[in-house]
C-alpha cells in the first residue's frame, strides 16, 4: 500500500528489520504506514513477528535496520516513556500491567508519569472511569476483580494518559462473548472519536466485525495489507498462513462466481447478498 498523502501518518515503519541477540531474524523488511483514525486488525501466527513489530511502535524494541517514525519523529530519538504518552500499549495479560492498591490509583499512575497537573489528573481519571463504566469499582483493589474487569481496568489505565494511538494485544481472550462485545464497543467509540487503534487478535470474527483495515504478517514479512474486506476475502493467502476466515466468508466463496474477490464480512451482509426473500419478485 503506497503512502496516502491526504491522511496524517502516525506510525511509519520504513524497511524495518529486527534480529534478536540469539540470531533469530523476526522482521525482514517491513514497510508500513498507520494513519490517524485507522482501526487496524493485525493478524499472524505466533512467531510471525507481530509482537516484535508492535514493540517497535512503542519503543520497547529498536530496529536493527530501517526506521520507525512516531508522529513524524524518529523513534530512536525518543525514550519509551515519551513514546508512551503518544502510543498506549495494552498488554495481553492485564495482571502484568496493573499493580496498584485501588483502581483509582491505577488510573492515576499513567497521568502522573506523563507530568499532568493534579487537576488534569483528576479529570483524566474520572473520564476514564466513566468511559469504561468502572466508576463503581474505583476504590477496589484490581487484583480481586474478575478477569473481564481487570482487562477493562488495564485498558482504562492506558487510556487515562490520553494517547492518540492504542495498541491492544489480544484484548478479547478469556472474555465471554458479552464482555468482549462490551469492550469492543468501547474501543469502537474511541476510534469514532479520532483515536487510532491497532488490534492484535486471532479471532477472525472480531476482525471482520470491528476493524476497517487488515494487516497479515508471516515469517517477519508483510503479506497482506488492505481494507478488512480485501484482506479477509483473500482466502488462499490466509490459508497459507493457517488462518481460517469466518464461516460467512467461506460460505460466500462457495456460493459466488470464481472471479468475485470481495465477500460479506458479517451475517447481515451475507443475508443481503445471498438470501432473497420469496416476496421479492
Amino acid at each position, binding site marked *: 500500500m503506497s503512502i496516502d498523502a491526504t491522511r496524517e501518518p502516525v506510525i511509519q515503519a520504513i524497511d524495518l528489520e529486527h534480529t534478536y541477540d540469539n540470531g533469530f531474524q523476526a522482521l525482514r523488511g517491513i514497510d508500513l504506514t498507520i494513519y490517524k483514525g485507522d482501526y487496524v486488525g493485525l493478524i499472524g501466527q505466533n512467531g510471525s513477528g507481530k509482537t516484535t513489530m508492535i*514493540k517497535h511502535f*512503542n*519503543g*520497547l524494541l529498536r530496529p536493527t535496520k530501517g526506521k520507525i517514525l512516531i508522529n513524524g519523529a524518529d523513534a530512536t530519538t525518543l*525514550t*519509551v*516513556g515519551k513514546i*508512551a*504518552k503518544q502510543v*498506549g*500499549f495494552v*498488554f495481553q*495479560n492485564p*495482571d*502484568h*500491567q496493573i*499493580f496498584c492498591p485501588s483502581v483509582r490509583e491505577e488510573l492515576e*499512575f*499513567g497521568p502522573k*508519569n*506523563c507530568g499532568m497537573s493534579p487537576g488534569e489528573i483528576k479529570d483524566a481519571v474520572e473520564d476514564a472511569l466513566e468511559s469504561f463504566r468502572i466508576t463503581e469499582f474505583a476504590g477496589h483493589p484490581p*487484583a480481586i476483580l474478575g478477569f473481564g474487569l481487570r482487562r477493562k481496568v488495564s485498558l482504562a*489505565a*492506558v487510556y487515562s*494518559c490520553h494517547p492518540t494511538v492504542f495498541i491492544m494485544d489480544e484484548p478479547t481472550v478469556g472474555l465471554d462473548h458479552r464482555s468482549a462485545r462490551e469492550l469492543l464497543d468501547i474501543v469502537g467509540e474511541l476510534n469514532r472519536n479520532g483515536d487510532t487503534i491497532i488490534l492484535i487478535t486471532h479471532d477472525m470474527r472480531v476482525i471482520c466485525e470491528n476493524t476497517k483495515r487488515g494487516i497479515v504478517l508471516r515469517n517477519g514479512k508483510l503479506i497482506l495489507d488492505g481494507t478488512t474486506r480485501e484482506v479477509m476475502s483473500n482466502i488462499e493467502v490466509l490459508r497459507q498462513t493457517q488462518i481460517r476466515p469466518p464461516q460467512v466468508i467461506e460460505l460466500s466463496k462457495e456460493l459466488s462466481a470464481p472471479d468475485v474477490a470481495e465477500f460479506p464480512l458479517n451475517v447481515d451482509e451475507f443475508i443481503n447478498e445471498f438470501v432473497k426473500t420469496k416476496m421479492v419478485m
Partner: protein
Amino acid sequence: MTLDFYVKRDSWMHRLDPRVKLVLAVVLMVAAMLVRDFWLNLFLLVGMLLMLASAQIPANRFQWVFKLTVPVTIMIVILWPFFYHSGPCFFYVGPLPITLGGIIDGIAMSFRIISLCFACCSLLFATDQAKIVRACVKLGMPYKYGLTLAIALRYLPVFFGIITMVTEAQYARGLDIPKKNILKKLKSYMPILTAMLIAGLRNSDNMSNALETRAFGASVENRTYYSDFSMHSRDWIAIAIIAIGMAVFTYFFVILDVRLPNIFW
C-alpha cells in the same frame, strides 16, 4: 534463564548414577575450599576441565563460567598481595610490600573461586535437573521436598519471563526507571514484585487443583517412580576411586602436611 546447563551426551560421566555425581560434586567443592597451595589448585582446576572435556561438554557451553569469574579474579589478584606477603618484594605501596608470593597466592585464590564454580556446575552439565532431584529423594530427602524443588526449578524461567514482561508493561505506561536515584529505583521495582507475587499466587491456586486431580497424596507408601536408576559396578568403582583419592589427599596434605616445592624463588 534457567539453571538448566545440561548438555545431553553419552559419556562416562553421563552414565554415572546421579547420586555418585552428587557426591563427586560435594567432594570437589570441599577440595576447592580447603586447598591453598598454588600447584594443587592449578591441578584441581585443570583436572576439572579435563573431566568436562572427557564428558564431551563443548567449551562454548562452559566458557561463561570463566566470563562470570573474570571480574572477581582480577579483583583478587590485585588485592591479595596487599594482605599476604611472602618471598621477594617488587615494590612498596605505602607501608605494604607487594611480593611475588602475594601475587602467586592471589592467583591460587582465584583458581579456587573458579574451581568452586566448576565443582558446582560440573554436576549440572552432565546431569539432567530432574535426575538430580530424584537422586536427592533417593538419598533420603522426603518426596514432598523433592517435588517442591523440582517445581521451583521448573518455574524459574517463567518467573524471569514475568519480570521482563512486567518491566516492559511498566515502561509502556510511561514509567522511567531512574538510574541515579536509588530510592526511586527501588520504588519502581514495586510493580514488578507485586505482579510476580500475584502471578505466583494464582499459579499456585491452579497448580493445587491440578495436583489434586492427578491423585497427589493418594498413598505415600505405595508411590512408585517413573524415573529410576540403580547403582552399577561402574558407579561403585567411581565411589571407590573418589574414596581412595580423598584418603590419599588427606594423608599426604593434611596429616603429613607435605608441601610442594616452591619453584618461584
